[in-house]
């Protein structure tokens, strides 16, 4: 008998888990359990979950390195696409529910307000990542170029955290926590990269 492959079960399970936030908020909305300002609730909920999904996506590589469970890579694309999906819903709440598709107003908002600009930047940077997430695109771009494109997520994350910081009126504890988490996730990559280079250099110096 073929060896049972547990990833076949885990992937749908993770997929369903990623739907969790959406199921929860729609349930709250349907049962009238949101606050007196449900649109604001939905906007904030989709916003914070975009940031959370983004952090989870960024945590996969460090987790693989730390735990040695390389198979975690199987979830990265899916969680990344869920990040984009959450971001899209969040963007829609702004474009539709807040501005009601008044593109002139939206443009003015983007130019005038760093708060909107940072959010738009974070979302826009995710678009090429979502588009090039297929196998075909990896082949078309080639591994290293594809990877270079997908480093845009670092900037998207930074813009997202800045956007969150601008959103808060005075209570910046949560945005600061996200900034700290992002610095850790990016710092780990920098540290790991440097260590890899140092390890590669060592045998060479020994030969000399």
């Amino acid at each position, binding site marked *: 008998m073929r060896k049972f492959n547990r990833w076949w079960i885990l992937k749908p399970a993770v997929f369903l888990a990623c739907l969790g936030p*959406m*199921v929860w*908020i*729609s349930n709250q*909305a*349907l*049962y*009238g359990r*949101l*606050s*007196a*300002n*449900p*649109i*604001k609730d*939905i906007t904030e909920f989709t916003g914070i979950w975009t940031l959370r999904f983004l952090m989870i996506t960024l945590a996969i590589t460090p987790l693989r390195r730390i735990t040695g469970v390389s198979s975690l890579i199987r979830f990265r694309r899916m969680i990344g696409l869920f990040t984009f999906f959450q971001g899209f*819903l969040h963007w*829609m709440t702004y474009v539709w*529910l*807040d501005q*009601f598709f008044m593109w002139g*107003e939206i443009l003015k*908002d983007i130019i*005038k*307000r*760093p*708060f909107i600009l940072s959010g738009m930047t974070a979302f826009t940077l995710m678009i090429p990542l979502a588009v090039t997430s297929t196998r075909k695109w990896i082949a078309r771009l080639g591994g290293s170029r594809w990877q270079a494109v997908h480093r845009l997520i670092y900037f998207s994350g930074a813009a997202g955290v800045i956007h969150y910081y*601008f*959103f808060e*009126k*005075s*209570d*910046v*504890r949560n945005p*600061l926590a996200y900034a700290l988490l992002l610095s850790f996730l990016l710092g780990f990559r920098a540290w790991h990269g440097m260590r890899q280079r140092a390890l590669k250099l060592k045998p060479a110096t020994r030969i000399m």
Partner: protein
Amino acid sequence: MLIQRASDISSSEITPENLYHNRREWIKTASAILGLTAVGTIIPACAPTVGAAGEPQAKGKYDTTEKPTPFEDITSYNNYYEFGTGKDDPARNSKNFKPKPWTVKVEGMCKKPATYNLDDLIKGFATEDRIYRMRCVEAWSMVIPWAGFPLKTLIERLEPLPSAKFVEFKTLVDPNQYPEQRRSFLKVLDWPYVEGLRMDEATHPLALIATGIYGKPLPNQNGAPLRLVLPWKYGFKGIKAIVNIRFTDKQPVNTWQQQASQEYGFYANVNPNVDHPRWSQARERRIGEFFKRPTLMFNGYADQVSELYAGMDLRRYY
């Protein structure tokens, strides 16, 4: 300066009648359109009914005829940072707050400085109902049936000296009752919360000290036992749980101005033409409505209050 009057825009022009009435309905529709609903199921909403008190009727000359926001929304969606920064924190964390007994210290340039028992301070004042619009600086708004008395009545009782040009108010400081005041690291605001008014603003007939809503005593989360209500200014000017009133000749520095002076000024008059640096103030979402509506100059009270600010550059004095 463009001054839009409340009467120029009837609510029916802004929001379709059917959308106006039931937010539980439209939120269902909205979530269905957003694709958020469970596939193919129609789940009846367990919509709680509106507050028990009867519908208040607009009677006085300052009352708006707009539909009052339900009691349940007014008392569950609050900004009162002493109790927490979430909108539901005040309702949740104020259950054991003690608005009685209450003392108010009156000081500064007046003939009657003293520490008063609240009952003595307001003894004999007739309570009036006032249905006012309330516009939050965060671009949402409500219609609230307040009960209270004109601030002018209280000020006259305290007999300010001619030298007094401003009046300053402070909220209670009590870390035992206010969870946010127990925090020392990354404090949300500097306590106590401070607000101030020019004397002519404070004695304007619209300026109200509220002691109730919907004919009931003021709930703790709305600022019991007494709070300021200034319907032509952003909501944060309406200081809650007042324990200190001071008459002065210097313009007070209110809490939000101190926190971020480029974003919040001393006057904080509702003005659709002067944006908050991070968001537009041109429109607002009335609680319970789906679409945003235009914000009116001085929140629709331009006829009553614009002369207070005649000749002032409202971009500078925001």
